[in-house]
């Protein structure tokens, strides 16, 4: 790390399950960092300066000063977490040493979250909360797949009878899952169906790093929101409007690009 007081790490984020993975990881590691809130509603993530950091135009994105003094920018929450523990977790607070069995197992669950739980629960949110037309089948398909994946986590925790996904230690795999599991109700999944996973979620929430990291860049309101059905409806309606606006604009932009390509 730099010797100056200024943190070298900047986290570009917003209040989402993927965003808080990184702030929780940073808090668990006790690393100083700057937070740059990205306002998705005004499409900051599609501006050229941001695309230079993350060509996919998504949060979270993280920039740091590398050991050689040059800047590094990383995207994709899973990759950012792997970077942070490889570079900064030499005491193995939330990771296992490279080449150990536990290290590889952590990666299995990390990818399980990033390629499975995240995308499928995200689709459940879409069809349940944001889609332009109510497609009952879409709601069912993704809510059920999310439930199936929760079942895998629940029975793994029950079978291994350990407090975390990989042994006695909370790792980046647990942190990756937590923000999504804590928001289960938003995707129409009842966490009560999965008692061992629910106990794990509560265990995670007790951790000071999780408590501090979840409120970045602003208050993590989903757990309270899930207790207030009327407010949930209102927020879903507001979100639906701007998600659909964004989808429409994306489609139009692609059409314009195609048109330009044809005119060449």
């Amino acid at each position, binding site marked *: 790390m730099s010797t100056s007081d200024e943190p070298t790490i900047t986290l570009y984020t917003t209040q989402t399950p993927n965003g808080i993975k990184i702030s929780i990881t940073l808090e668990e590691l006790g690393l100083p960092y700057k937070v740059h809130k990205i306002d998705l509603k005004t499409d900051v993530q599609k501006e050229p300066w941001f695309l230079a950091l993350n060509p996919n135009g998504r949060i979270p994105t993280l920039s740091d000063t590398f050991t050689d003094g040059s800047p590094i920018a*990383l995207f994709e929450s899973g990759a950012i977490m792997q970077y942070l523990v490889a570079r900064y977790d030499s005491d193995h607070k939330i990771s296992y040493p490279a*080449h150990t069995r536990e290290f*590889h197992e952590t990666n299995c669950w990390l990818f399980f979250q990033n390629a*499975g739980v995240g995308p*499928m629960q995200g689709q459940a949110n879409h069809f349940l909360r944001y889609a*332009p037309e109510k497609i009952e089948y879409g709601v069912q398909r993704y809510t059920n797949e999310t439930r199936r*994946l929760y079942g895998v986590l629940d029975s793994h925790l029950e079978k291994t009878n350990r407090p975390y996904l990989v042994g006695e230690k909370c790792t980046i795999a647990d942190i990756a899952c937590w923000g999504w599991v804590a928001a289960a109700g938003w995707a129409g999944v009842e966490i009560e169906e999965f008692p061992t996973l629910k106990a794990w979620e509560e265990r995670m929430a007790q951790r000071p790093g999780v408590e501090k990291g979840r409120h970045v860049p602003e208050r993590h309101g989903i757990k309270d929101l899930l207790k207030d059905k009327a407010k949930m409806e209102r927020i879903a309606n507001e979100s639906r409007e701007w998600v659909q606006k964004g989808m429409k604009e994306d489609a139009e932009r692609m059409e314009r*690009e195609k048109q330009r390509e044809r005119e060449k």
Partner: protein
Amino acid sequence: MSKPIILYSHKGGPNPWKVAIILEELGLPYETKFVEFQDMKEGPLIDVNPNGRVPAIEDPNTGVAMFESGAIVEYLVETYDKSNNLTYTSSPEKYLLKSWLHFQMSGQGPYFGQKAWFELYHPEKNLKSAIDRYANEIRRVLGVVDAHLKKQGTEYLVGDKCTYADLAWVPWDMALQFLLGEGAKKVEEELPTYKAWHDRLMARPAVQKIVEERTKANSQ
């Protein structure tokens, strides 16, 4: 290493073939076990992968069992790619590879897969908004790759070396015609830098060998 790695696979699914390509590229001996969908919730696969999905591997040389294609690819490269043929040990390249692999795992795989479902398997064929959603996302994701390669002016995603992060994209990209039909050609015309990169990857002997094996497996 002496003993072959066991690869649990499926003839049709793209992700097991991603692992096969890496095994071929690294010249590792392996034995493929095809598992039918109805047998995925049973032993021996379920003991290796609690999610009951392929790919999964068992490596008798290390005693390590793995699931999730992205995690398997990282394991194989970290364990066996001693001369760094498919990876970088230098930074920041080493970490940039992870960004692109994760983007493939969370951005390409799941959305290409959903398009396949709504277009080909779902009993109601008229869910236009769902089909459009995933078709647009395929176009967008490949557009990100195209723009990145164009901007970098490199042959591959990270620098001028073909790595595991490039190869991970191959099986789903190979399915483009299957996913988009007529639209596939249009996407390839609109994204020439992506197309040239994909062709470059397809021309690799290890990729060709897997294409042949997959064709053979599916004709049996």
